[in-house]
């Protein structure tokens, strides 16, 4: 549990460094499962505002999760998550499509890429 907390704290620190830490209001939770070499995102779309990615590494290697906007700008990233570990990543997202990927080694090239859409409730 301490390891998980450490990961979460590191992730939050990374968010703060990039100015992406959202204000403390309820975030939309998004479950994310990572394995070799897939990223499964449990929600297709979320409303604009704070989003919390709850990442579980279900694989055997270490993985991370990086959130980028459609122009490739990095918004937030977790540290490397050990096999079986979990991390939480909080970021504020406005309407649009965002890319999720694992930046460890060549994992993204081998398939660890995904997308999430942020849409206003009226447009869903």
């Amino acid at each position, binding site marked *: 549990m301490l390891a998980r907390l450490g990961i979460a704290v590191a992730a939050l620190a990374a968010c703060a460094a990039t100015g992406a830490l959202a204000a403390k209001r309820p975030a939309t939770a998004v479950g994310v499962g990572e394995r070799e070499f897939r990223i499964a995102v*449990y929600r297709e779309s979320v409303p604009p505002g704070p989003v919390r990615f709850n990442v579980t590494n279900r694989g055997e290697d270490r993985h991370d999760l990086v959130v980028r906007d459609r122009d490739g700008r990095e918004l937030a990233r977790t540290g490397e998550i050990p096999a079986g570990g979990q991390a939480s990543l909080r970021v504020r997202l406005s309407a649009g499509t965002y890319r999720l990927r694992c930046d460890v080694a060549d994992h993204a090239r081998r398939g660890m890429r*995904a997308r999430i859409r942020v849409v206003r409730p009226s447009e869903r």
Partner: protein
Amino acid sequence: MVRHRPDRRRPRRRAGWSEDHVRRLLWRAGFGATAAEARRWARRGRAATIDWVLDGPPGGARLRGRAPHVEGRRLDPVNEWGDDVLWWLDRMVRSTHPLAEKMTLFWHDHFATADQETPLLLAQNRLLRRHALGSFRALLGAITRDPAMQLFLSLADSPKEAPNENYARELMELFTLGGGYTERDVREAARALTGYRSEWDDRGLVAIRWDPEQHDGGVKRILGRRGRFGVEELLDLVCAHPRHAPFMAEKLWSWFVATPPSRATVRSLAGVYRRSGLRIGPVVRAILEHPALYRNLDAPDMVKSPVVYVAGALRASGSSITHGYPVWLLETMGQRLFRPPSVAGWDGGPAWMSTNAVVQRFAFGNFLVSYGRPQVREGSVKATLPPREALELAREAVGSPPISPRTRRALTRLAARWFDDIPKDWRDQADWRAESLQRTLRHLLIAGPEAQLC
């Protein structure tokens, strides 16, 4: 072993069928009995109680009582960590058909699957509940096609050129036979199981599809039979094998009864299973009607698994899910739902009572007394309450569990001496001490040795 006489304070309603029988039945076939349930079903008699346990209420199962929430928010089992555990735990606590949940737990242990995406594991959980007391053959077919299982045991994308043997091996070893097969049977069965392909997109698994091009359609020799067996024929073969019925009978028996069955009992249960067309419900009924289930009502011998212990204590005390704490406690007790340690499931029995697990069970007692229905409200207890009445008040608050005369004497003595360090003329101003006594008594009733067995 804790041995105690049935509590004579509780009335016996019908010859041969008492509240003690009801409690034994409802613990083994569910998650315990509330005091009201024990009274009601003792009055109704054995046959009516077993019918209710098996069939559930008319109109189907539902959830009663307060819906779960964690720190003010509703559960989000797919996306929030631990909410999947709380979601199922809540069903165990509030369902009006506890046997369906207990059997879903049985199948979760039998067809143990882990390390898969949460939506897939939740879908598998619904599948197990749907088939919990129905046809085993139908359940086996459904679990073989289940995406979580397919990915866990590498059935999806098993190439016909080099079939993966994981599922074929566990199908025979853990799911249907337990023995009586050869390595060649496993290899040939793996050939019969080829043909499933997984399809993925940006959001994960799209579907598991059948692709005839990927299936090995050649002749196989499995369990002494020869033919161009495919998946369905293979499942028929293992279910028709002479070892299957006794294997399932024994496995089901050990879920409800701690002592091993006699050979005659296994033969009899296997006969029930075969005659019913491999249906689970009739075998479970035969076990619930068996005298062995009600043996030694004064000396329970089955260790409650962590999940049964936690769900039972919440249910008996009328508490609802309000915190995520049980998720961590269940993990440290050794049984996190949706995360069995291996494909063989949990070891169970005395293994649940390791030193650390017992400490965590005590911690759960603290949690329930602090946040659950048994919490003691300020000003609710007087220090002038006689020791026996203090104990009865504590028992009622945690669901009136039966206690042995020995435990009753010990707790009454504790209550009588609780104020010994306070001068008698101060007693009427020591209600805060009476509250701490109540908390202690409730905690000991929830977490003491007798509460660990059923």
